[in-house]
C-alpha cells in the first residue's frame, strides 16, 4: 500500500540518485560542455564551467539537507527546529544558485532562466519555512499547555 512513509522513502531514494547524478556531472561536466556547447568558445565555456562549479557546493548542501529532512520525516520528527533550519538552508542554497546564475547570466543569457527559476524556488521555500516555523511554535505551545 502506498503511504506517506513510502513517499518519504521514495523521495530519499531519489535524493540519493540525484547525489550520484551530481557527482557524475561534476566529473563529466567539462567533457559535456566541450561536446554539446562547442559553439560557445573557450572563454565562455570556462565561465559556464565556473558558474557550474560555484553552484556545486550549494547543490551538495541542498541534497544533504533534503536527505536529513527526509530521514527526520521517516522517523516522525517533523515539526522541530532542525526541520526549519534545513528549510532555511535549502532556501539559501537556492538563493546562492540564483545569485551565481544571475552574475554569469550577463555572459551567457540562458543562465538568466536558471537564475529566475532558482529565485522563484527561493521564494517558495522561504514561505514554506515561515509556515513550518509557525507550526513548530504552535506545536511547542500546545505541548506546554497543561
Amino acid at each position, binding site marked *: 500500500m502506498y503511504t506517506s512513509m513510502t513517499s518519504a522513502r521514495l523521495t530519499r531514494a531519489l535524493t540519493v540518485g540525484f547525489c550520484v547524478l551530481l557527482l557524475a556531472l561534476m566529473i563529466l561536466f567539462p567533457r559535456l560542455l566541450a561536446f554539446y556547447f562547442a559553439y560557445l568558445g573557450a572563454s565562455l565555456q570556462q565561465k559556464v564551467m565556473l558558474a557550474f562549479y560555484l553552484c556545486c557546493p550549494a547543490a551538495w548542501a541542498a541534497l544533504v539537507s533534503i536527505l536529513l529532512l527526509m530521514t527526520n520525516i521517516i522517523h516522525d520528527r517533523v515539526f522541530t527546529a532542525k526541520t526549519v533550519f534545513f528549510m532555511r538552508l535549502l532556501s539559501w542554497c537556492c538563493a546562492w544558485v540564483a545569485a551565481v546564475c544571475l552574475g554569469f547570466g550577463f555572459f551567457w543569457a540562458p543562465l538568466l532562466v536558471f537564475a529566475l527559476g532558482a529565485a522563484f524556488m527561493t521564494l517558495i521555500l522561504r514561505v514554506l519555512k515561515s509556515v513550518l516555523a509557525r507550526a513548530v511554535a504552535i506545536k*511547542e*505551545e500546545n505541548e*506546554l*499547555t*497543561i
Partner: protein
Amino acid sequence: MAIVVNLDVMLAKRKLSSGELAAKVGITQANLSILKTGKAKAVRFSTLDAICQALDCQPGDILEYRKEEQQ
C-alpha cells in the same frame, strides 16, 4: 514570565506530594513539573479546576501576577 505558579507553596500547605497531586488531578508528573517550574505556556480551565478541587483552594492561591522590573 510575569505569572508565577505557587503550586509548591500550596502543596506544602496541604502536605501533599507532587505524585499524589498528579494522580488526583489526572496529569502526568512530567506535566506537573512543567507547571511547577513555570515552563508551561498555558493552563486549561479543566486542569485548573481539578487542581483547585484537589488542593481545596482558589485559582488565585496557585497563580500570582508579579510585575516584571524593566532593566
